[in-house]
């Protein structure tokens, strides 16, 4: 973007006034952002004349990182492709992972079943219908050993979508690596470990927010000290958005949650520059291309300023908003599922233009089933075509300097800052969650969007427009294998029968006592996991001390 001199700007403004009248521009139908801000029919140099390029935009890899967090971006290294995968038992997931790696995927992303995410063992009668359904079932370290059979943990990173039970899963990752002769400081990957958004959307909370944030911070502290190549948290806005919030509310809430985690780590005595370079975020892309790009540019700027000005970060890496993002969720439709392929490609394009670090594109059948090998490969190939066939990687922040995108970046910045301010005024994200405020915004958004979809204000081709009555049932779908559950329960029984019971009870007793105090619980959980204590046993031990969260009912 060149900065025209004042006389030129006056000439542009004058010409625009003429154009507006002569071409009856005011009669052109109105358009708005997702949050309702006006989008003009065309953007001109005078509208971005107030922008100070060096102050607000700058260069990629430099403060305030509006254009991206690395100087060369995809010319040097394309974003990481990680398709979310996991189902049934560890054997089945290990096989699917190997298929994805052989299809050219460079890293893994693990989906866990709901019992694992919520601290139940596979033999618990309460959850018998859910074992191995939404992801892989994990009960003990034995399952993790099978999960990583023949997979070299010293160079293969895994992203784990796990929150309440994140310390247990991280402990199993560390212990399994140990058996492969891989040290914690060699391990790469991410644990989601963002419990606050679970109270707002997604719902896999166990304990009340206070002790939950303690566990989150335990992981941040442990990784800071012992796992320098691992990302201890992935602060998520995609779920808040999929539950009904608009993109600005969703990312504003997640930045407020991030502020809570940073403060908690500082209160623990960590230096901001020790841990901030390892904070990551995860968001998603819906049907908006330019708004997504503008949002991520704005958020990079906002986060850099928060880290520098509010938290006193000095290292460049501490100020970088590094993010993964997915395309899928509420943007995909069960009706006419082939069209999800197209949605996936446009979403991926938006994310690449926005400077994403790691991407997942949901498979077209993922709105209703675990993907098949074929649909999983198509989703991966969607990213591969974008990265390796198109010219989208050739220059950094290709939309930067567009009058529209720069103006929209400012609009998004205002929207997101207003959300953060609102949460601050409520006393921070924990208070806002306890009061049900974020949940209410999400529920209101979901209801409004449902109405808009039914009235046709929001379009979904093949669903509420140009529908041709194709359903998912016409596709070859992944079938869950009932024998998986039997096998999983049998393995758990065998592990329970062969482990050293006194070592298990001693390790759980130590964890119990430590939970009463303020020590970092990671070493205790690692010991329990190594003794083959189960996910359920460890979670129950902590529940005895921490209690359970009581959900405020917000409709």
């Amino acid at each position, binding site marked *: 973007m060149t900065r025209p001199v004042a006389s030129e700007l006056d000439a542009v403004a004058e010409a625009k006034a003429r154009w507006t009248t002569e071409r009856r521009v005011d009669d052109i139908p109105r358009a708005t952002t997702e949050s309702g801000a006006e989008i003009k029919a065309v953007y001109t140099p005078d509208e971005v004349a107030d922008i100070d390029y060096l102050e607000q935009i700058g260069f990629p890899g430099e403060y305030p990182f509006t254009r991206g967090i690395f100087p060369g971006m995809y010319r040097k290294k394309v974003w990481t492709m990680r398709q979310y995968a996991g189902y049934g038992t560890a054997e089945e997931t290990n096989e699917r992972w190997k298929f994805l790696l052989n299809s050219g995927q460079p890293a893994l992303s693990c989906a866990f079943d*709901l*019992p694992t*995410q*919520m601290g*139940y063992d596979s033999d618990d009668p*309460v*959850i*018998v*219908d*859910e074992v191995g*359904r*939404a992801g892989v079932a994990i009960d003990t370290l034995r399952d993790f050993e099978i999960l990583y059979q023949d997979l070299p943990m010293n160079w293969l990173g895994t992203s784990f979508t796990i929150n309440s039970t994140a310390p247990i899963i991280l402990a199993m990752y560390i212990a399994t690596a140990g058996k492969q002769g891989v040290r914690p400081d060699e391990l790469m990957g991410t644990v989601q470990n963002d419990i606050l958004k*679970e109270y707002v*959307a*997604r*719902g*896999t909370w166990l304990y009340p927010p206070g002790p939950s944030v303690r566990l989150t911070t335990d992981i941040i502290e442990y990784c800071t000290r012992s796992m320098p190549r691992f990302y201890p948290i992935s602060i998520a806005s995609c779920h808040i958005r*999929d*539950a*009904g919030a608009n993109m600005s509310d969703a990312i504003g809430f997640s930045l407020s949650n991030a502020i809570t985690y940073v403060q908690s780590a500082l209160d623990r005595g960590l230096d901001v520059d020790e841990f901030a370079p390892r904070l990551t975020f995860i968001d998603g892309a819906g049907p908006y291309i330019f708004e997504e790009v503008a949002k991520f540019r704005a958020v990079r700027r906002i986060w850099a300023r928060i880290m520098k000005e509010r938290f006193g970060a000095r290292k460049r890496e501490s100020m970088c908003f590094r993010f993964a993002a997915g395309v899928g969720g*509420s943007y995909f*439709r*069960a*009706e006419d599922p082939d069209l999800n392929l197209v949605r996936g490609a446009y979403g991926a394009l938006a994310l690449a233009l926005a400077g994403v670090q790691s991407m997942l594109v949901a498979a077209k059948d993922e*709105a*209703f*089933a675990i993907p098949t090998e074929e649909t999983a490969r198509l989703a991966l190939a969607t990213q591969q075509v974008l990265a390796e066939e198109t010219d989208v990687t050739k220059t950094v922040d290709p939309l930067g300097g567009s009058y529209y995108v720069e103006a929209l970046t400012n609009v998004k910045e205002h929207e997101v800052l207003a959300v953060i301010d609102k949460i601050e005024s409520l006393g921070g994200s924990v208070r806002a969650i306890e009061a049900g405020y974020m949940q209410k915004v*999400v*529920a209101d958004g*979901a*209801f409004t969007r*449902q*109405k808009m979809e*039914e009235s046709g204000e929001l379009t979904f081709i093949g*669903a509420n427009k140009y529908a041709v009555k194709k*359903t*998912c*049932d016409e596709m070859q*779908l992944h079938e*869950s294998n009932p024998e998986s559950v039997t096998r999983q329960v049998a393995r758990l029984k065998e592990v329970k029968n062969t482990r050293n019971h006194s070592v298990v009870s001693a390790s759980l007793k130590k964890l119990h006592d430590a939970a009463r105090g303020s020590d970092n619980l990671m070493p205790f959980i690692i010991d329990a996991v190594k003794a083959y204590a189960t996910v359920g046993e460890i979670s129950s031990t902590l529940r005895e001390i921490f209690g359970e969260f009581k*959900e405020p*009912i*917000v*409709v």
Partner: protein
Amino acid sequence: MPEKKIRVLVAKPGLDGHDRGAKVIARALRDAGMEVIYTGLRQTPEQIVAAALQEDVDVIGLSVLSGAHMGLTEKVIAKLKENNAAEKLVLLGGTILTRDIPKLKAMGVAEVFPTGSRLEEPIKFIKEKLGGTVAA
């Protein structure tokens, strides 16, 4: 005699945390003049049936998006029968494949509203089944 509003329990059985649909439908039924009780997340079939009896509802709307709908629905219906409450209208919403619908109906589900259903569909169905009001 004053007319009694139709009473509906909207329930989330199992571990599934996707409550977007449940909350949207709860609000739509309320806007349509019904008395709606929402259970919140993570309810066992026992808890759901106990709440249905205690609140004396006419309709139980289950919402499941985790793929665990067959087993969970079967257990809710079995519990209702155990408690001589099989007359309550059981509806199911969520990610339900068309091929599962006949099996669910044979189980005792009155109607299934998969993802993509319009809000007016369950409202119309309930009103047709129970009339605008139910006997006090």
